[in-house]
């Protein structure tokens, strides 16, 4: 009898206790918006320059020569290279003070264009892209660099034109599964997204252009095994349409640029590995340098293949009409005047 009562009260007790639980208590997920996501949002909010047709903001030597008064010319080559010959009125500077100078010029002359000049157009494309990401919409890069200004500066380009490796394939390698964005470690004193972004960009600019790799020099070190190789561009930079075509180095994954822009957040950006180095090639190395700038800001460990497809398969680049626009040749050299000294 006692046991029965005990059980009855225990049941009542349990019922009352359960009914008192607050069933409106909804657990709110921890909303952790990491810095990389914040920076991605900020870069999109100011136009997402790398993922548009504007990238990499090329200016041809002819455009610059004909409208030279409309441009500030910032030459980022070494003082020795600068003194051996430069465009008249060009300012020589190092990458370490590039941001401050562009910021100053932008504020004092907001309507004047700024063109960054390097030896072959790839470092300048890299820095121009970083500066665009920082919000300077008037920054451009000289197409093919000083090599297109005068033959005197074209040795590097001509030295790179070759077909370095014939163990290419037309196999289409799949993209990796989606994964997290890389983690950026930023000082906690930075509060706004803009502060975080500008800090990240100025840090990267200060390190100089260290993200370029010569394929021929590195193939023997097994770079194709340690890096994820990416072709960024149109299909003919990836596949060779001739019978038995050999389009790209083994294990290269294709990311489209035209129309799709596959590094966009809504596309395949996050199929890039956050724990493996990445090597990107494009047609002439200038677009890939820009994409490397963008991906470096997002925390990826990424490098550009210098001279792009010009270094990988120059003969094929010349033979396929759809991609001859990426060829560097004597037709691109304007032989405009230059001055020597400081």
């Amino acid at each position, binding site marked *: 009898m006692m046991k029965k009562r005990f059980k009855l009260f225990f049941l009542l*007790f349990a019922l009352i206790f359960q009914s*008192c639980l607050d069933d409106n208590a909804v657990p709110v997920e921890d909303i952790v918006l990491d810095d990389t996501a914040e920076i991605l949002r900020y870069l999109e*909010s100011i136009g997402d320059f790398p993922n548009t047709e504007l990238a990499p903001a090329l200016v041809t030597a002819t455009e610059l020569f004909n409208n030279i008064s409309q441009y500030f010319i910032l030459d980022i080559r070494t003082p020795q290279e600068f003194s051996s010959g430069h465009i008249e009125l060009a300012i020589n500077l190092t990458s370490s003070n590039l941001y401050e100078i562009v910021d100053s010029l932008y504020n004092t002359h907001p309507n004047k264009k700024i063109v960054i000049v390097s030896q072959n157009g790839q470092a300048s494309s890299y820095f121009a892209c970083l500066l665009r990401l920082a919000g300077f919409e008037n920054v451009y890069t000289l197409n093919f660099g000083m090599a297109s200004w005068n033959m005197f500066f074209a040795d590097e380009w001509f030295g790179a034109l070759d077909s370095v490796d014939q163990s290419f394939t037309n196999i289409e390698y799949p993209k990796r599964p*989606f994964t997290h964005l890389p983690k950026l470690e930023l000082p906690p004193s930075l509060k706004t997204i803009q502060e975080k972004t500008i800090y990240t960009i100025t840090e990267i600019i200060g390190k100089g252009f260290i993200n370029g790799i010569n394929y021929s020099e590195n193939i023997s070190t097994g770079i194709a095994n340690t890096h994820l190789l990416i072709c960024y561009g149109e299909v003919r930079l990836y596949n060779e349409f001739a019978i038995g075509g050999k389009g790209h180095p083994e294990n290269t994954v294709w990311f489209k640029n035209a129309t799709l822009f596959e590094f966009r957040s809504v596309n395949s950006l*996050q199929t890039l590995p956050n724990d493996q180095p990445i090597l990107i090639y494009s047609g002439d190395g200038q677009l890939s340098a820009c994409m490397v700038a963008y991906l470096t800001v997002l925390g990826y460990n990424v490098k550009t293949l210098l001279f792009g497809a010009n270094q990988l398969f120059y003969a094929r680049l010349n033979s396929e009409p759809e991609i001859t626009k990426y060829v560097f040749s004597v037709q691109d050299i304007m032989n405009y005047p230059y001055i020597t000294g400081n």
Partner: protein
Amino acid sequence: MKHFKVILFLCLLFFIGCENEELINPEFDYQQKLVIQCQFSVDRNFPGVIVTRTLPLDVEFNINLAEITNATLYLRINGYQIIPLHYFENGVYKPLYDFRPIEGDYYELYGEWNEYSFYALSKVPVKPVVRNVNFNSSGFYSEVDVITSKDEVYAALWAVDQGTYQTANDFYNVSVPSSYTNNNTVSVRSAEYPVEYQSSIYDGRRYISVYSFDRSFDAYFKTKTQNEEINNPYVQGSGSTVWNVKGENVIGMFISYNKSDFIFVN
């Protein structure tokens, strides 16, 4: 007997302790709530998320007052892919570029605005697979069996072909599978066809369109009328609408759906 008294005492203690002291609040202070709205499906680009706030009763609704223009919103797809959403207009936050949701993917919504933060999750349902289409000639509605998929519920609209399809304004009910697993079947019915389409004299064709939803739609559908304006003085609301957006003082639905083609009934 002693035990009996002790237990009774304990019960009373717990019962009193559970009283909600805030139940009666004579001052009906206006509590601003953040309102999140988003319905998306695989047949169109992601439409964006609408973020507004409730306004006091004495303030006429005006989107310029209600819209939130400086919230921070992200989508996260399948636990990885981050897609920032940017303010567009009228409280709408969109991705910078169009994209189309893919069935089977999980979408999470993260957001912050001032002291508010919110979160929601929705799985994009698969297109309903239908069997056994039937017109119930006594109840004047159509019904089908749907093969279930994990974490999905189902509803249907009647439709008639009048050159273009005319459909019901709302669902009759939401059919919940006996278990939220794959490959069972569940019966789904439409509301009654309007009188003009019920009779055998009607010489047109009757159709049914079946929708699949994330399972959180069920609770919302069953309670959605509870927050509406009460026009009948003899009726009072019986509770709150169940929203799937989580967050303190945040209400709203972030829900994905999929739908069948118009299925011919008779």
